[in-house]
């Protein structure tokens, strides 16, 4: 059970949040110009790595805002939390 620091509300229990999978996958602006393979890459391919992962989270039972999180999936350490549209931390 993580303690997640929602960028809008502050620290809240994990049960208030839902995870939306890998972050920084941008919906193509011209989907019709993509080949089947390119579209499939956007649509289906997601990383599930052991280690530091960038994820989308939603404060579903709170402010309902989406934000991004950097989490180490091997020990659940949350390295950073930042708003949608903000640049991911470099480290």
């Amino acid at each position: 059970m993580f303690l997640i620091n929602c960028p809008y509300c502050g620290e809240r229990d994990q049960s208030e949040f839902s995870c939306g999978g890998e972050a920084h996958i941008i919906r193509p602006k011209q989907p019709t110009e993509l080949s089947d393979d390119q579209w499939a890459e956007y649509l289906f391919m997601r990383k599930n790595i052991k280690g530091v992962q960038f994820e989308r989270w939603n404060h579903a039972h709170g402010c309902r805002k989406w934000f991004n999180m950097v989490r180490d999936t091997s020990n659940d350490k949350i390295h950073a939390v930042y708003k949608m549209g903000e640049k991911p931390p470099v480290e």
Partner: protein
Amino acid sequence: MTKYRVNKTKHVDQTKTVSFDFDGKSYHGFEGDTLASALLSNGVHLVGRSFKYHRPRGIMSSGSEEPNAICQINEDTDLTEPNVRATEIELYEGLKASSQNCWPSVNFDIGGINNFISPFIPAGFYYKTFMWPKSFWKKIYEPLIRWSAGLGKSPTKPDPELYDHKHVHCDVLIIGGGISGIIASKIAAKNNLKTILIEDKNILGGSTIFQKNENYKINDKYSGEWIDEEIAELKKLNNLTIKTRTSLAAYHSYNYLLAKENISDHLPLDKKNGGIRQRLWKIRADKVIVATGAIERPLVFNNNDRPGIMLSNSVKKYLDFYGVSCGFKNVIFTNNDSAYETAVSLKEKGISVEMIDIRKKSNSKIVKNAEQLGVKIYWNSTVVNTFGLRKIYSIEIMNLSEDGSNVVGNKIRINCDCLGISGGWTPMVHMHTQSGGKLDFREIDQTFIPNEIDKNHINVGSCNGDFELEEIINNTNKKVKNYLKVSETEFDNTSILNSKELDKRNIWLLPNYISEGKCKSFIDFQNDSTAKDIKLALREGFKSIEHVKRYTTTGMATDQGKLSNMHALGIIADTAGVKMGTLGTTTFRPPFTPLTFGSIVGRSVGNFFDIIRKTSIHKWHIQNKAKFENVGQWKRPWYYPINDEDLHDAVQRESKAARDSAGILDASTLGKIDIQGTDASEFLNRVYTNAWSKLGIGKCRYGLMLNEDGMVYDDGVTTRLGENHYLMTTTTGGAANVLSKLEDYLQTEWPELDVYLTSVTDHYSTASICGPNSKKILKKIFTDKDFSDDAFPHMSYQNGKIDEINCRIMRISFTGELSYEINIESKYGKSLWEKCIEAGKEFKITPYGTETMHLLRAEKGFIIVGQDTDGTMTPIDLQMDWIVSKKKYDFIGKRSLYRSDTIREDRKQLVGLLTDDPNEVLEEGAQIVSDMSKKPIEMIGHVTSSYFSPNLNKSIALAVVKSGKKMSGQKLIVPMENKNINVTVSDSVFLDKENKRINA
């Protein structure tokens, strides 16, 4: 006083007698006893039979590690509970307990036959033997295993007790109220930190509280006296909450912990008063100090499982804490100094005791103390056999060879009625590892101790591998100071006297003159796995400790291997010739001790199990005898039976009435999303498959929403209320997910759009009136309104007023009939409904439920998302190409509609089905085939919706069939259990293809 109650202690009140039953026999104990101590005071050791071989087993320990003394309590009451450890349950008046896993009785046990055939039940026996013949499994093997493998009986009646959850935050949580936990709590609370101390026993003090030995003193007091004073002071501290009878169940990440508090388990049945039985504490702690102590290890030797063989420190606890001597002729078998404290304590009370030590010598103070008291010690010796079926009466010992790998010399026989065993101590690192902590192996005493790198908690006391008093006090003080950033404490200059252990020797599996195959050296007492089983598993090629554990079931019983895991590891390491530290341990998973389902569920039972949503018209539905259907969390009227009508009759009547005159449906549960903003039209363009820019104000449009993979996700009618204002409806079950999905796109993909979404599902109630007379009814309600087709056409909306209350009227139809929906603020929902019923009386307006709604729309071939679709249907599959805009550049799911897989022509497609016999109604979900001759028969589709239509007077069905689009008129077969039903593929619109009714 019974014979075995030899000592008066302050923890057991020998003036207050408590009577209880065990296995149908009445006994007496005292207030302060556990069931185990009371049984032992009556000389009862034999309390159960082992799981596999049904060997007689006795009380072995005094705590949560107990593998044998597992009872069913209060059988035949609704409060009965299986798998209760006799060592943990506090004795109360009228307690009824019985042994588990023995039939017909603990003294005569039929399953004991397994003991004699045990050479034939090695590890993996069940896996190997019951494989064949296959036909034996269901009728013979399974019932046999189930019958003989039961661990207690679950209650058959509903649990009458209450359970609670409590959420707390604290600065410091201390787990364990022994000496190190007490020191830590005092330091934390005295430094202005909000502190919680939890202890699973009913009193604080751990094993220090019954220490009264010259060799262990703190500030010149016996350590037991010293800790009494500390506890008294602790109880006066303001910042400290002390929770006894509270056991830690789980330690999750970010210092989130679960603890179970027993509130009434120790009370007699008639004093429980229906109050709260257990409370689950959900604790978020800034800092956690683990002080869970250590568990004494058994020794593994031949026949080490007889009743009367007990952990040495438990023998001491029963004597010094409960005043009970477990035997009068005791032998203690050890590899370490701690067992000598038991010997000294026995001897000081004049009780006979002898020592067998596998070490060659020990010159510590406590050993000298024992020698001075005249305790006979057999050095460099091991027990090779024990005797006594229901209770031990003698043992055989031999000398060990120089390297300990063998026995030498003559056998010596010693009579005894209790054999204490001590193989050293295992730190309880469960909490540390549950939190994700790693372990280090300490070679000198073969223990795994916590590695605290990167952890947000500390371990203190013996769970940290500090076993000697001086280490415990000084290291605890030092670590806590450092962790809590405290510069000085009252424990800084404590004077401590203790005996130091200098000589160590460990042998995981003690050697024997009897061949290994004939020895019964138990490792896991509860699951009956022996050293031989482990070695067999290794010979058969199992290497990983996790695999050996599962194959032999070592450590997989209700005690989770608290006594057995280390020995299993040690024997694997020795056999495989590797270092134990390199093997790693098995994973310790929560809960540390079993949790009741009640405590997990808390108050979320009965009506609180899930939210029940009711519309504002619900009371009317009840008054009018509606049968309800669950749709998501909603209760929706399913049908309204009159007199003795069943579902079929009611639905036939309701459906006919709706098409012949007028019907009314409570449509309040449909999801409603208010959409506002200058980009609202553009937003709808992107989320629906059809075009929205040109929808006039005051008009309604049906929309289909896809997932990005092109599959139909939701549908509904959206109304343009104003230039930048829409009201979207969704399916009842999909409302919450649709809102989340739309929010997701708005916030993450299209933040540039000026759009605001608000869920208004609960804000408006909706009455949907359909049928040829619906217009007349509306006219009676809204007398000044023009309902002509020109003024108020199909798919449009107008505002209206009922007695000054604003409402919205939409002329939309899900039934194919002329139809209106009236939306009004929910608080007026019921009066609106009643007004409609009143106005419709002269037209015999008929309330109808979801079943009739489904039938009516099926007649018209309208889909229900989630019934006719299953997440694999595109709009093209549904033959709804008309709703997919060719002009729009993009919308959610567009690109996926021409992926190679979605353009396949042999996908399952929605069609109508007509049965050759018009009275035959297909079963929803039934499979469809075309060719019965070719085996295996290919399934080409299934029925999604099926009804008998009273308006068409025949059976109709919707189905999805491979290449169905091209199959119109083709004969197919729906094979059922007893017959094959012949069907013909038809158009999916069965009624009024020309849409005459909607505009009637």
